[in-house]
């Protein structure tokens, strides 16, 4: 079950990156004794002034950093990975989102 939940979370982050138009996405999952760390990164190639990538990223970061809810995690996890960023936020403990020089890096932490 835990592995499936991690796969869903990777899928949620991957979906977001694809929607931003990132063409080369690097993803990494580290399973440690007490915590799972999911990293995803890539260049948005977003050079237009009109592009609202930064705004979208900020909003996504906020959604990922809402409180983790064990009961929601247990009941609704099957819906993660399908444009359900709040759910992803409720399934992780913390996310670090950085966006510099059009390069996005998201690291999500999920305590076991």
């Amino acid at each position, binding site marked *: 079950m835990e592995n499936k939940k991690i796969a869903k979370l990777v899928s949620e982050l991957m979906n977001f990156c694809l929607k931003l138009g990132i063409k080369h996405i690097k993803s990494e999952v580290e399973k440690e004794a007490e915590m799972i760390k999911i990293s995803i990164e890539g260049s948005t190639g977003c050079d237009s002034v009109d592009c609202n990538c930064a705004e979208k990223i900020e909003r996504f970061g906020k959604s990922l950093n809402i409180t983790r809810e*064990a009961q929601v995690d247990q009941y609704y996890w*099957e819906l993660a990975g399908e444009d*359900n960023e709040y759910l992803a936020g409720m399934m992780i403990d913390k996310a670090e989102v950085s966006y510099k020089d059009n390069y996005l890096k998201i690291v999500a932490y999920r305590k076991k």
Partner: protein
Amino acid sequence: MSIQNTHEEHLSKNESLKSRIAATLLDSFTAVNIKAEINFLVTIALASIILLSAFIFNTPQEILIGIKQLATAPSILVSDYIAIGNLGAAFFNSGILMFSAILITKLSSANINGTVIAAVLTIAGFAFFGKNIYNVWSIILGVYIYSRIQKEEFGKFILVALFGTALGPLVSQITFGLELPLIQGIILGNTAGIAAGFILPALANHVIKFHQGFNLYNIGFTAGLTGAFFMSLLRAFGIENPDTSIVAEGYNQLLGSYLIILFVAMALAGYLLNDNSLKGYKVILKHSGRLVADFVTLNGLGISLINMGCLGVITTGYIFLVGGELNGPILAGIFTVVGFGAFGKHIKNIIPLLIGVYIASFFQIWDANSTGALLGALFGTTLAPIAGEFGWKSGVIAGFLHMAIVMNVGYLHGGMNLYNNGFSGGIVAAILVPMLLAFRKETRNVGK
């Protein structure tokens, strides 16, 4: 030497990262705890109001007699506890079940957030027609046993346990409705309840993919399947549930005044908690409502209470507008909509559904003010995420279709799944959503 240094650097970097995360988590943990306490106190206050209201309507002795009558009723759809017992007993039953749900949540260390508030108010509502102090426990016990076998904390399953009490009539019908000797009925009824509770968690996880989170009453769909399974077994042994329609009449003035005062007070309390403002309401209206949109976690308790109060006033107003009767089943519908005002529903995504069901009453065979049609309208808002995601026209269509489907699926579970509309909503969403998605994609492609 260099490898050793690199390794040590890596370890120290890891340790520093871990302590940074631990510190941040501790800060957020404290903030979350304060919010959770406020959520807990507000929910307790609401339960106290419902419980104490019982004594406005009846004397303690009448309440006691009424409680005995409703707790021993088979309780299959539609059994109005206001008619079976009395108004005070129904309110007392509702208050006690609310307190029980809050206490179980607290004991299981789960957070009281929008999802739990929705579950508690759904229980409060259905305590007016189908859930009582006798028939909910074995289902909760079944979920508890499942959590123990899975070696997981029960708190993680609290939503399934609370919403799963939709199958309360399964326990009551077997105990009191099949003319079995009482002890045999109690044993068989509760065994069925434990079995139902035991299979719900896995099934609820599985079926949620069927409607992709566009049916808010997912347990309704799950319990519909489970109820159909048990009903098929009963029918295999020649046992059939009787058609039941016990509904109270003549309470419109009394209950109408009570509900309006309650929901206005709820909205006012929310206004005070929200720093005397409506700040954040526009944000709530932007949510599609698709699972999982916990307004309390995302937007705060204050603004959620305002939303809940507004939904209460609108749904009560709808009943009066179409000339319906306020009774136990209708109270269940209103309270459930209000509860989901903390978890997915708002005025913008429920009104198209109400319109859809109302339009259906002109073309279909049911009158808009019949109990079935009113329940179809109130509980049809389980499909609110369709209106939220695809627009009001899709919401109207969903409401129209829901009315036709909901009137046909009750037979499958013999009235033993109280969330019949959740069962129907799952079917409507599963058929409608893929089509709406396909149509939306096609439009986008054409635009390119």
